[in-house]
C-alpha cells in the first residue's frame, strides 16, 4: 500500500519533470523529419526557465486571466497525480476523480480564453470548445466505463482505439491545434500571455500532454500486469512510446478546419466508443 502510494507520487513528480523533456524530444523528432538539426534535449526547460525570469505582464483580461492560467496549471498537475494513482488503485472513485479533473481542466482552458480581452483569443476559445466537444465526452465515458466494469479480457483492448484517438485530440496537436493556429489567429487562446504566465501555460499544456500520452497505458496496464514495479516500468515506457507516436503523427498531417473537425472526429470517436461498448457487453464464451 505504502509502496504504491510512494510509486504513484514518484510517477507524478517524474511526469512534471519529464513532460518538457519529452517535448524537446518531440521537437527533435519533428526537426529530424524536417531534415533540421533541432534543439537540444533540455530546450523546452530552458525556454520555460527563461520565460519565468521575465517580468510579469498582466494581460488585457486582467488578474482574472492570470488566476485562471494558474488554476489551469494546478488542475493539470492534479490530473497527473490522479492518473498516476490510477495505475495502482482501481476504485471507481479514482476514475471519477480523473474524469472530473479532465473536465475541469478543459473548463479552465475555455474560461482562460474568453476572459482575455482579445478577439483572437475568443475565436481560439470557440475553437477549443469544438475540440473539447468532439473528444472529451467520449474520453470521460471511456474512463468511467473502464472504472465501472474493469477490463477483464484481451478483447477489451479494442477500447484502446477510442482512447488513443480522443487523447490525441485532447493534446491539441496538429491537426487539432486550431485553438492556437498560429498562422490563422496568431496563437489564439494564448495570444495575451507572456513571461511567467506563458511559462505556466506551457507547463500546464505539457503536463496535460503527458497525461494524455500516459492515459492509454495507465487505463489498461493494471488489469494485465500484477507487479507494481513492472507497472511503473511499463507505464513509463509506454508513455514515452505513445508520445513519440503522437509526435510523428503530428508531423505527417496538416491543420484542420473547425467545422470539418467537429464532424469527423465526433463520428470516429462515437463509432469506436460504441464498438468498445458492444464488445464489452458481449457475454463470455
Amino acid at each position, binding site marked *: 500500500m505504502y509502496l504504491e502510494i510512494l510509486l504513484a507520487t514518484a510517477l507524478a513528480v517524474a511526469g512534471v519533470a519529464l513532460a518538457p523533456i519529452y517535448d524537446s524530444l518531440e521537437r527533435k523528432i*519533428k526537426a529530424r*523529419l*524536417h*531534415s*533540421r538539426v533541432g534543439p537540444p534535449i533540455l530546450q523546452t526547460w530552458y525556454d520555460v526557465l527563461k520565460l519565468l525570469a521575465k517580468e510579469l505582464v498582466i494581460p488585457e483580461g486582467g488578474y482574472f486571466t492570470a488566476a485562471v492560467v494558474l488554476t489551469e496549471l494546478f488542475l493539470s498537475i492534479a490530473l497527473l497525480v490522479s492518473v498516476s494513482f490510477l495505475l495502482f488503485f482501481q476504485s471507481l472513485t479514482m476514475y471519477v476523480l480523473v474524469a472530473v479533473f479532465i473536465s475541469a481542466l478543459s473548463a479552465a482552458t475555455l474560461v482562460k480564453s474568453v476572459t482575455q*480581452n*482579445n*478577439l*483572437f483569443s475568443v*475565436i481560439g476559445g470557440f475553437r477549443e470548445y469544438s475540440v473539447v466537444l468532439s473528444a472529451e465526452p467520449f474520453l470521460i465515458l471511456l474512463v468511467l466505463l473502464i472504472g465501472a466494469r474493469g477490463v477483464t479480457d484481451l478483447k477489451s483492448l479494442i477500447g484502446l482505439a477510442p482512447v488513443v484517438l480522443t487523447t490525441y485530440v485532447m493534446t491539441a496537436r*496538429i*491537426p487539432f*491545434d*486550431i485553438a492556437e*493556429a*498560429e*498562422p*490563422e489567429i*496568431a*496563437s489564439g487562446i494564448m495570444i495575451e500571455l507572456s513571461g511567467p504566465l506563458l511559462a505556466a501555460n506551457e507547463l500546464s499544456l505539457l503536463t496535460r500532454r503527458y497525461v494524455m500520452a500516459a492515459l492509454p497505458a495507465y487505463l489498461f496496464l493494471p488489469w494485465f500486469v500484477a507487479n507494481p514495479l513492472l507497472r511503473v516500468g511499463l507505464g513509463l515506457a509506454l508513455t514515452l512510446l505513445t508520445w513519440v507516436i503522437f509526435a510523428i503523427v503530428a*508531423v*505527417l*498531417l*496538416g*491543420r*484542420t*478546419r*473547425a*467545422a*470539418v473537425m467537429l464532424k469527423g472526429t465526433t463520428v470516429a470517436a462515437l463509432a469506436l466508443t460504441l464498438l468498445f461498448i458492444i464488445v464489452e457487453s458481449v457475454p463470455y464464451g
Partner: protein
Amino acid sequence: MGERGRYLPECPEMSEVVRKLTEEYGGHMIFSRESEVYVEVPRHELRDVAKYLYNSGAFLKTCAAVDERPLNRSFALYHIFGMDSKGYDVIVKVSTPEDDAWVPSIVDVVPAADWCELEARDMIGIELKGRRLVRRLVLPEDWPEDVHPLRKEVPHDFRPPSVKAESEFRPPERGIPIGPYHPVLHEPEYFELLVEGETVVDVYYRGFHVHRGIEKLGESPRFTYQKIPFLAERICGICGFVHSTCAIMAMEKAAGIRPPERAEFIRTVVLELERIHSHLLWVGVAAHILGYDAGFMHTWRVREPVMILSELITGSRKTYGLNLVGGVRRNIDKDKMEKIMKILERVEKGFKELANLLVSVPQIRRRAQGTGVLTRSEARALSVVGPVARASGLYRDVRKDYPYLAYKEASFKVPLYTEGDNLARVLVRVEEVFESISIIKQLLDKLPGGPIMHEKCSAIIPVDELIPPGKYAVAAIEAPRGEDVHFLMTGEGRPYRWRVRAPTYQNIPALRPMLRGDPLADAPLTIASIDPCFSCTDRALVIDVRTGRARTIKLWDGGAGTCRL
C-alpha cells in the same frame, strides 16, 4: 494623319486603333514603337476611348500621372492599355491644365482603374470626376491635404508636419483584424475580416504601410540611369531582378539600344531562376499556413540549392546586382553551366516528389479545394495578373503575349486552370516551376556566344548621354507573381517620371471576391494565395481603401504616420 503609314508599317491592327482614336475621338498620335503607341485624346472623350479599348479586349495595365507643368503647364494621366492577344500596348494620354486639374474617372467602365486613379489623385493632385468613392489610397491620414508628393516642386526628402487625421469611412460592424503585424503577413498590411460565425462576409483592406518613395527617389538628383537598376532591384526582396530588368528594358527602349543576345539569354535564365525560388518559397509558406510544416521545411530545403546557384552566378543570393543598361556584368561559363544543369536536375527530382506528397496530405487538399474562388469574369474585370489569372482560366502571360528577352527561343507551356480556387493557384505555381526548369535548360543549351555588354555601354561609361530626354517607354515582365510594368518618361540624366506597377497591386483588389463566403480558417491561405508582395505594391505610396474599424488594434487613433516620403 497622313504620316500614319510611316510610323506604323508592320502592325495593321495597331494602325486601326490609332485611326479610330484619332478620327473618331479627336486624338492625335504622339509617338510609336514596335509594340507601343502613344495617343493623346481630349479628356471628355476618355471614357468612350476606355470603353472602346476595353471592349476590344484590352487589359488596363495601370495608369501613371505625371506633373508636366515645367514642360507645358499641365498635368497628364497616361492610361496603359495592353492588347494581350495582339501583343502591343496603347497608351492613352489625357492632359489637364494646372488650374483646372481633373480627369474623368473610368472606374465604372474599367474596374481595374480603381487603384491607379486614386494614386494619381494622392500623388499628383488630379481630381477624379464621376467617381462614387473618392478617398485616400496611398497617403496617410495625417498627411496635409495640399501636398502631393510626386509634384515637381516637392523635394524628394520633404517631410511635411503631421496634421490632425480626418475621420475616414469605417464599416459599422466589428471585424477580425489580420495585420498590420500578423504571423501570416510577412510585411505590414492590414485586412479586416467581417465574419458571421466562422464565415467571412466582407473584407476591408488598408495597405501602403511600407512606402519608401522609390519612384520619387529615382527622379531625384541622388540618382542617375546608371544607379537606378540597383534601386529598382530593392523594390522587392524576392523578385528584385524582375524590377531591375524591367526598369532597364524601359531605359534601353528609350535609348534605342538592344543588349547583345548572350546578355538577353543570361537575363532570361536568371529571371527563371528567380521564378523557381519564388514559387518554391511560396509553396513552402502555403504549407506552413495549412499547418504542414514538414512541407514548408522540405520545400525550402529543395529551394536552397537554387539560392546558392544564384549566388554563384550573380554574386548574391538576392539583389543580384547583375544588370546594367546595355547588358549584364557576369558571364556564365562552362563550369557554371554544368553546375546549373546538375542542380536543376536535383531540384526537379526533389520537388516532384514533394509536390506529390503535398497534395496527398488530406488537410491541404480539403482546405485548398473550393476556397478563395475567383471567377473568370471577376478576374477579367479586375485585370488580375500572373498565376491568379491563370488559375481563373484567364490566359495571360507576358512571356507569351509580349515576348521579350530570349523567351522566343524556348518552348514552354502556360499552365491554365479554370477552377479559380486556392488549389488551382497552388497547382499553377507547381507546374510553372517545372516549366521554368525546362526553359533554363533549353536556353543554356543554345546559349549564343559573343559579348555580354553593348559596345556603347559599360560600368564606367555613363549611359546618360544615350538616353535623350523626352522619351517614353513601357516595359513589362512576367514576374513570379504576374505582370510587372514599368513606365518611363525620360529626363535630363535621370527619369522625369518612373512609374512602377508591381503584380500584387493588380491582384489585391481581387481578394474581396475571393474571401467573401469562405471559412475564416482559410482566409490566411486565400490572402497568401495571391502571393502578395506588399513592398512591391507599396513602393511609392499609405492607403485607406475600404478602411475597417479596429477595436483591438488602435490603428487609427494616432493616425497612420508610418509612411513618410
